[in-house]
């Protein structure tokens, strides 16, 4: 009898926790947001439908949390157990009460002098397991915090920031491993994906995205260029528990705009890689842009979708690449299925059935500037994407235009920029942007919502037939996910550079998004 009561009490006394089982089933839990891409498939599809296309126009702010110093605020918050956990720029983080937005604890750590990053000290979010939260710090460290009070449980150096490494990625927890990527390909670094033991912080495996001579792929580099080969991994990957594969996109080869010092395809840069989750061993790779000289990272979301293509059920990987093409791959073996351009592309006429780009000559950067499309940032950049299984559409932002690509000569100097030039605007050309919805099975564009520039916030889609994103002018925007029709907009007062999320708390559906230095939640009036 006694033990019966104890059994009843234990679940009440033990704090609710994020378990490995919950992470695997995240797709089916509408109330929480447990990881960067919402689920292992990185769909950013919320099954909630209280807010839908018919009533979204009534959305109103529920609370606003001012978080000075968190900007540029690009994190995807995590939501579970009545709390919201979010990170910000400059090694910041905080835990908020889901009802009021009040802060339960804050985390901060000074960035040491001398950290070099291409683009700032923003941070894309926490990962969670048990009572622990994991985040990277800018100076290429990973920390585990106690989710109850923010206390540091362990801290591990990922690599030496003096070599040019930095970290901004949201980790992803796979089994008992915390998996992260690294930034720094503009500084002559060599990229990798790392897995750390969630209990101890010890590194379990590392996969270098640039092979050494003698390793498979090592012959796609000449001399010692591989040592500074780039291939950073600065956006969170996805995971297929059945195949036990982790998918991660890799960035540009180094130096970015001058390929003369690195003849060859430069594997595994600008590629999708599939790694065995337990060992970090490479299962397959697919290179989108061989020997890239336009900084077209392939770090954009790898989204996992089970689709019927030509009457056949397939496990696919969706990827809107910075190079202007949207790809569908077979995620079991990495085989190319299809790809289509979603914006103006000048470097390749098409992707051939064997998966190789059909190149158009004359696209190489030059001292006087060479026009190429899309521009350096893409096409689609890092901003979160979303796949809605109900519409069958995959959504992402796009910069539509061209740039002049310049090239310089320069010897490598440790810790200095090793980009070997830059881009500039094409005179009299006004680039635009758009929200693109493509048919996930065919990669064909279904509809397009044109804007002045690519939306700076990421995508969220819901079972209420909504597509929600934000722009740099501060608007949070809701479109009909089926048609792209504008349904609602709200001026938040700050540029939106993060992916919106949705969750349910005490029976009410919320949309939350960071705008400039504030975190804002929305719900329907009660």
């Amino acid at each position, binding site marked *: 009898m006694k033990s019966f009561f104890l059994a009843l009490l234990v679940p009440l006394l033990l704090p609710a926790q994020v378990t490995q089982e919950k992470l695997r089933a995240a797709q089916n839990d509408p109330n929480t947001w447990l990881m960067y891409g919402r689920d292992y498939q990185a769909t950013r599809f919320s099954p909630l439908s209280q807010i839908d296309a018919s009533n979204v126009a009534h959305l109103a702010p529920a609370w606003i949390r001012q978080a000075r110093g968190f900007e540029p605020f690009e994190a995807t918050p995590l939501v579970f157990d009545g709390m919201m956990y979010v990170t910000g720029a400059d090694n910041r983080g905080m835990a908020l009460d889901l009802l009021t937005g009040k802060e339960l604890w804050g985390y901060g750590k000074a960035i040491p002098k001398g950290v070099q990053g291409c683009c700032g000290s923003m941070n894309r979010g926490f990962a969670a397991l048990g009572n622990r939260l994991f985040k990277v710090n800018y100076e290429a460290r990973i920390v585990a915090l106690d989710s109850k009070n923010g206390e540091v449980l362990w801290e591990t150096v990922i690599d030496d920031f003096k070599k040019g490494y930095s970290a901004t990625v949201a980790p992803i927890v796979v089994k008992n491993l915390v998996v992260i990527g690294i930034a720094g390909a503009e500084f002559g670094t060599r990229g990798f994906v790392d897995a750390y033991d969630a209990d101890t912080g010890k590194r379990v495996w590392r996969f270098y995205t640039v092979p050494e001579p003698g390793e498979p792929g090592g012959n796609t580099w000449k001399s010692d260029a591989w040592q500074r080969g780039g291939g950073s991994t600065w956006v969170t990957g996805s995971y297929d528990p059945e195949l036990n594969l982790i998918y991660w996109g890799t960035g540009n080869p180094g130096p970015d705009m001058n390929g003369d010092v690195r003849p060859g395809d430069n594997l595994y840069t600008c590629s999708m890689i599939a790694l065995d989750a337990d060992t970090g061993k490479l299962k397959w790779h697919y290179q989108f842009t061989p020997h890239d000289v336009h900084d077209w990272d392939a770090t954009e979301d790898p989204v996992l979708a089970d689709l019927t293509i030509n009457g056949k059920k397939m496990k696919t990987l969706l990827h809107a690449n910075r190079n202007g093409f949207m790809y569908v791959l077979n995620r079991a073996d990495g085989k190319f299925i299809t790809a289509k351009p979603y914006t103006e592309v000048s470097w390749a006429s098409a992707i051939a059935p064997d998966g190789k780009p059909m190149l158009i000559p004359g696209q190489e950067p030059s001292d006087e500037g060479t026009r190429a499309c899309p521009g350096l940032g893409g096409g689609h950049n890092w901003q979160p994407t979303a796949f809605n299984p109900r519409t069958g559409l995959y959504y992402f932002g796009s910069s539509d235009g061209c740039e002049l690509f310049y090239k*310089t000569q*320069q*010897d490598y100097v440790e810790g*200095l*920029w090793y*980009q070997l030039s*830059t881009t500039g605007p094409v005179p009299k050309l006004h680039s635009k942007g758009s929200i693109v919805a493509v048919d996930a099975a065919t990669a064909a564009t279904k509809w397009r919502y044109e804007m002045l520039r690519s939306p700076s916030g990421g995508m969220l889609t819901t079972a209420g037939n909504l597509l929600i994103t934000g*722009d740099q*002018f501060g608007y949070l*925007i809701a479109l009909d996910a089926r048609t792209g029709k504008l349904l609602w907009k709200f001026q938040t007062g700050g540029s939106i550079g993060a992916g919106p999320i949705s969750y349910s708390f005490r029976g009410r559906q919320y949309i939350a998004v960071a705008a400039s230095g504030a975190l804002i939640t929305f719900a329907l009036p009660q």
Partner: protein
Amino acid sequence: MVMKVFSFLLLSVGIAIAQTQNPLASDPAAASVGKGMFRVYCVGCHGINGQGSRGPDLRSTQQHDDQELFTTIRKGSQATEMPSFEGSIDDTGTWRLVTYIRSISKPDDGPLPGDPANGEKLFWEKGGCGACHRVNGRGGRLGPDLGKIGRARTRISLRESILTPDEDIAGGYGTISVVTRDGKTITGVERGFDNFTVQLIDLSETFHSFERSEVQSVTRENRSLMPKSSLSDSEVDDVIAWFIQLGAVKAKQ
């Protein structure tokens, strides 16, 4: 006393961080790395070849010695948009940049033609510039405030702006025309344009704001509202001579 000590300290720090001689002066390898750095850090404001755009033309830096250039890069320039690069570029990197900037120097423009006192008079009177531009709290509000223009622009780009104002319109000063649903056209200086709304100031300095979905049309025009100059060549020289003095940092003697 406290202030004096403070100023003295600042001066000492200034001397301590900047060497008087560029250790990499005329070193082609340093200029080459400097060019690479320039294209990462500087082109956004100074143009791909240092020709200037939002920031000054760096091919005309003859009035400043290497140490001044070094200090400006490290500390930024007060009252301008030039930021400090102290945290991101070390001493050697800064000297490499200085070496590159020197390598693109043009021959000195020679002594400045024009009479600045007459230029000021022309600005307020015959030129009619003060109807739209402001200097030291006087003048119109439609065009850019020119109170510190001498710090930001070279005389070449000033001449271009006076003679061909449509060629390079200052950021935020484009022309926009809105036709309302009842057929009224409002033309003015663009003060805001986003995915959903438009803001402008018309010629009477009245502010307007519209939802773009609630007007008949919105046209952004590739022209400046600034009229064609009525000044002679020598009068333009006079106005430029006055502009160059506005907000200028005194060159080292």
